């Protein structure tokens, strides 16, 4: 029964491996000091608005985030020094590294493609919106 249930979760939430890595990530965040944990949770929440879920790209992103804050907590770097004066700027620069699954990337391609068509430019493969 347990396997059936996990299988169902797998189909619903993506491959099991991703799910396992996500749980590992959550456990790592739980072990962080409160301030660091709050910061990671807030950054994770923000990342959802870019279309990241628990898919491969999203999980790698979260793991890198956990690395950064674990390292920061271990070396005593204050949260403010990790994220800087403008956390949004940091978050955007960080999230740009994980384009997979981000709706904004598809929209950017679509915009580029539309302008190319509008200006009658080449049928180049770059930036075409399908």
């Amino acid at each position, binding site marked *: 029964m347990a396997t059936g249930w996990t299988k169902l979760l797998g189909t619903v939430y993506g491959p099991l491996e991703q799910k396992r890595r996500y749980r590992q990530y959550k456990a790592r965040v739980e072990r962080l000091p409160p301030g660091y944990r709050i910061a990671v949770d807030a950054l994770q929440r923000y990342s959802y608005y870019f279309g990241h879920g628990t898919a491969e790209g999203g999980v790698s992103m979260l793991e*890198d985030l956990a*690395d*950064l804050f*674990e*390292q*920061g*907590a*271990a*070396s005593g*770097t204050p949260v403010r*020094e*990790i*994220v*800087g*004066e403008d956390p949004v*700027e*940091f978050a955007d*620069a*960080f999230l*740009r*590294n994980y384009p997979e699954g981000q709706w904004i990337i598809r929209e950017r391609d679509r915009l580029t493609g539309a302008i190319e068509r509008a200006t009658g430019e080449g049928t180049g493969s770059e930036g075409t919106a399908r």
Partner: protein
Amino acid sequence: MGKQVTEMLKGTLEGIVLAILSGRPAYGYEITAWLREQGFSDIAEGTVYALLIRVEQRGFVDVEKVPSEKGPPRKVYSLNAQGQEYLEEFWRTWSFLTERLEQLREGGR
């Protein structure tokens, strides 16, 4: 550090970090600490970290994981041949930019 420096730094940080790595391999925290010492006191560790991930994805650096006494293993970054090439291009662009700006300051031609 003023807002203006922060803005200007954005476009050049990648080149700065690659230039630091051309001297010797380093991990993220060392790079941030060095930048702070040099007067870029507002630089966020996360910003440098994000940048290092990007240059790794673009194939400019080689990465080695080294265990640390406290916390997770550290990633030590070193500049590879492709990164060296990119850095040379960065310096050429930089020279172009500074020459033109200097001309403007001296009375705009």
